[in-house]
């Protein structure tokens, strides 16, 4: 009777071997993914044989059939791990991200292999994809308790701020953006880690203060603001987003962090006034930065009229628009587009920032609508997991994790399409790059773990534990 949580969670945490539980829907969906990817690979190989400009590593029936076999094998191995874990977790997420990753693999095999050293572009991406799928499976199978996330929310936030500061000071500038951090031989993009830490912190903070945020408010004319003491973290968020733009020159991460923050604020409070206020703050901040900072001005000017500087700053965006136009409705087919002219990419950073444009050219409007549909499925699953979560922390965490993948995909897709100013962030599960794939794998793995209603009960609050201790002392006296 001393530990109340024990009554509801008698099972120990950590690894334990449960009875395997079949996941027939997941298996059926993965089979469709495998067939579709095999057809895609055959299509790429056949096109290559007659176009003949870009000799791939293996001119067989499939374009690099070995890589395809490894990837599909990894997907089914992940499926097997989830079956053996015996948990009642979501069955749609793994096939959906598996499809996205497979499309990425086809695209990277199709681009010049020299874009990445060592194994070549396609094979390097394959290695990261397999590790990422492995993370999804292992986190989805093993993580049962969320106590390690919710009890240390301020520590996670502090870690995020620390990583940010380290990047400010020691980061390298790549293309004028300070995004990359190298520690010895390992280098990566810290904002990929920070975005996960941000969602964990927001879920902890908002779930703890939700009643207060809804209940009380400070009136300012027609607007109902949150109570003043609770406004401080929000202003801090806004300041952090702006400082990322100023110091790191990373518009994409700043926009992503701020939009996800506003969405989670809305999820937690259902108050439209907070969102409107946040958007006004974003517009005011954006306008001031536009006046002060040249790199922001360049981005916005390109967005307003890329053709004015078609061979200068606007070059990438103009080439991307041409690619979408060449693709048309059905696309040119994998391998038949023009992302490579004479061994040179007309769109620099195609494999990291513009994969959506390349896919728009080769798969057409139909293809990219299907890809956007896959991201919508990820968001739907996340919100569904949030709606059936047992408490506020898990609900906000699940909503935040899926929104961060979805919002990031839509920011970069819209940037490629010139709907919003272009910002250099990755397309989750499709862009080339280890940090992005690993972070996305962790996000989906956590979503899988959260989708299990039979997981361990939420831990007790600190106040509740103190109360119990006081009572037990009184009883023993």
């Amino acid at each position, binding site marked *: 009777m001393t530990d109340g949580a024990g009554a509801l969670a008698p099972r120990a945490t950590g690894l334990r071997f449960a009875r395997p539980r079949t996941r027939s829907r997941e298996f059926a969906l993965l089979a469709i993914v495998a067939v579709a990817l095999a057809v895609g690979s055959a299509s790429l190989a056949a096109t290559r044989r007659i176009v003949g400009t870009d000799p791939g590593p293996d001119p067989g029936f499939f374009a690099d059939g070995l890589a395809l076999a490894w990837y599909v094998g990894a997907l089914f191995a992940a499926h097997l791990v989830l079956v053996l874990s015996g948990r009642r977790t979501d069955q749609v997420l793994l096939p959906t991200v598996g499809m996205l990753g497979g499309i990425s693999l086809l695209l990277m095999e199709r681009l010049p292999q020299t874009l990445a050293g060592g194994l070549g572009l396609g094979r390097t991406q394959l290695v990261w994809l397999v590790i990422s799928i492995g993370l999804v499976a292992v986190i989805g199978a093993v993580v049962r308790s969320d106590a390690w996330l919710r009890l240390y929310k301020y520590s996670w936030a502090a870690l995020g701020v620390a990583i940010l500061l380290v990047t400010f000071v020691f980061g390298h500038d790549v293309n004028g953006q300070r995004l990359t951090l190298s520690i010895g031989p390992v280098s990566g993009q810290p904002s990929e880690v920070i975005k996960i830490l941000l969602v964990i912190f927001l879920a902890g903070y908002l779930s703890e203060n939700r009643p207060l945020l809804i209940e009380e408010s400070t009136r300012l004319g027609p607007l109902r603001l949150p109570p003043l003491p609770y406004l401080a973290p929000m202003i801090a968020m806004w300041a952090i987003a702006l400082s990322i733009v100023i110091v790191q020159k990373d518009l994409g991460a700043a926009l992503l962090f701020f939009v996800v923050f506003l969405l989670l604020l809305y999820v937690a409070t259902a108050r439209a006034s907070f969102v409107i206020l946040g958007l006004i703050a974003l517009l005011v901040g954006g306008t001031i930065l536009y006046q002060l900072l040249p790199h922001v001005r360049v981005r916005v000017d390109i967005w307003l009229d890329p053709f004015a500087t078609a061979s200068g700053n606007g070059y990438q965006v103009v080439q991307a628009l041409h690619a979408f136009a060449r693709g048309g409705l059905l696309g040119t087919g994998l391998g038949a587009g023009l992302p490579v002219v004479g061994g040179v990419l007309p769109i620099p950073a195609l494999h990291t920032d513009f994969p959506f444009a390349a896919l728009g050219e080769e798969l057409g409007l139909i293809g990219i609508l299907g890809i956007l549909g896959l991201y919508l499925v990820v968001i739907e699953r996340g919100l569904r997991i949030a709606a059936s979560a047992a408490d506020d922390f898990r609900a906000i965490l699940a909503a935040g994790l899926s929104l961060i993948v979805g919002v990031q995909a839509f920011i970069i897709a819209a940037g490629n399409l010139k709907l919003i100013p272009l910002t250099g962030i990755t397309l989750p599960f499709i862009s080339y790059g280890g940090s992005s794939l690993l972070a996305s794998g962790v996000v989906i793995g956590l979503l899988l773990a959260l989708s299990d209603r039979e997981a361990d009960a939420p831990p007790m609050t600190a106040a509740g534990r103190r*109360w119990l201790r006081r009572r037990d002392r009184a009883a023993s006296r």
Partner: protein
Amino acid sequence: MDGTVIAIWLLRLLFLAGLYLFLWAVVRVLLRDLRSAAREPGAELGRLVVLESPSGEPDVGAGFSLDAVTTLGRDVNATILLDDEFVSSMHAALTYRGRVWYLEDLGSTNGSFVNGVQIDVIAPLAFGDELQFGNVRLRLERARR
């Protein structure tokens, strides 16, 4: 048209068809999932789970589905009967107003506690909060959907 070109065309369209076949299969799973969720009696606004109850009434681990107004106490007319010597006959009420649950103390002798802190007449609750009345401890959880 030459055979290879037709084969390439077919493969291209087949790949797109595969992508949409996958989406169609996913949407079918999602629809089935949403329908089964809609069929469940979904009127509950929250759940109250019993964490500790020395008298065995209610049972430890039992879950109560909550209506907009739920009363707790030792009286048989209380919505949730708490058979504990430190609980008053009409001890407290849980009310759902707008988007938030509130706990109201109905003038009980020993008071009502949220996360170990005694409340002053009425307090807003968050899902996951722990409530204590006498020796009975309960946790407010989100509705199962």
